């Protein structure tokens, strides 16, 4: 089962991530999950085949500071999170302005579980059309 190595705060996020790279941690990826009242942002790093996962609980409507200036590899996944969850990621090395992976006519914030937003809107519309 997934073990969270450490829970991070917005205040110590950069400091913590910056301390991992010189110690040989390899950035694996980030995972965002909509936990209804907040977003769980997981930072996965590998050290000698062991997965170290750091968790940031991001309040909704709050922006996420990018780590791409510390860890360039995070650039793409942070842009993907912007697209899929509608989270604003600040200070990205390259900001695709929420048009990184989704088409222009794609649902907005499709991975958010907020009722009435994203895919649920499309589902509702489709049901309405059936009636």
């Amino acid at each position: 089962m997934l073990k969270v190595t450490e829970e991070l705060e917005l205040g110590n996020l950069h400091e913590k991530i910056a301390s991992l790279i010189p110690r040989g941690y390899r950035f694996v990826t980030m995972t965002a999950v909509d936990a209804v009242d907040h977003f769980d942002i997981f930072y996965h790093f590998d050290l000698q085949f062991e997965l170290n996962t750091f968790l940031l609980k991001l309040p909704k409507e709050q922006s996420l500071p990018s780590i791409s200036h510390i860890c360039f590899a995070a650039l793409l996944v942070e842009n993907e999170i912007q697209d899929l969850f509608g989270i604003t990621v600040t200070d990205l090395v390259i900001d695709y302005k929420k048009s990184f992976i989704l088409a222009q006519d794609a649902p907005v914030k499709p991975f958010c579980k907020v009722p009435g937003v994203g895919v649920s809107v499309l589902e509702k519309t489709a049901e309405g059309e059936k009636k």
Partner: protein
Amino acid sequence: MSMLVPFGPQHPVLPEPLQLRLEISDEQVISAVPVIGYVHRGLEKLAEQKDFVQDVFLLERVCGICSFIHSMTYCMGIEEMMSLSVPPRANYLRVVWSELHRMHSHLLALGLLADSFGFENLFYQLWRVREHVMDAMEYTSGARVMLGTCCIGGVRKDINKEQADFVLRKLSDVEKELRTLTPVLLEDYSVKVRLVGVGRLDPKQALTDGAVGPTLRGSGVSYDFRSTGYAAYRELEFSPVVEKGGDCYARTKVRINEVYQSISLVRRALGHLPDSELKTPLKGNPSGEVAVRAEQPRGEVLYYLRANGTDKLDRIRVRTPTFANIAPLLHMIKGCALADVAMIILSIDPCISCTER
């Protein structure tokens, strides 16, 4: 003075749509910005709407090349959540099909690389060799790529003696024919001129950028997730293939040697197939969260799964190897000649459908 050159999304050497916006000065690349999103399929979202057993088939379709390893990694995640142990024979069979996939993926990638520097004959020869592997997969599963043989708790199909003999005969053909092609790929003057010293990535940069698979091992880093011994790799005494050059040539050499290594692994696995059940029966629904990894032909894949005790998962996240290799690619391309861009891209063996899921 610099100018902007769009490389792709439609380009003769790119099998899938990827664009690199290249800033060029005197035929030399100053910087590159990747643009994807042409084939995003929303599979992660779709997987949340299917039940966790249907997801085995859905997630197998994340990639049309290393499909079996996708379904296996997902199954490993569910098995961990449900504390299901996989029978020994199923673990060996998982290795057999995984390595067959690795072989056909590497042969496909090597062929495309040969095509990128204009060696069409070599391209055809490598793909002809690949057909033996496709035949082996078809004979054991009934399908060439989407095998559908992995299931939660084990595997759905067995490999009998006659099928095992067929696979071994096909592997002998692959080995024999690849032995005649290897010197062309590794020693031919023209090929070496195009590959040696091109697209260099030093080990430190490779680790910092999160490179995986042959891209990482070609830079001298001995990292292959099969070393952890998942499935039956521990019993089969696996050790990674590593090259130190850090260039297109080193990455090519890693792939060639990994094909030989896969042949050896399949022979050992089929030679020591244990007698056991094929799968452990499944009861109930998964709950909790896991992050599981496995080694695909292009590198390490990660599946994050969060379950809630129902038959549908809350979140499925797939980090494919090409997604991880795009950041290192940007560093490889920096400073290279415009004419080398195509080969450098193909040296990471990009899979854009995987990347966009």
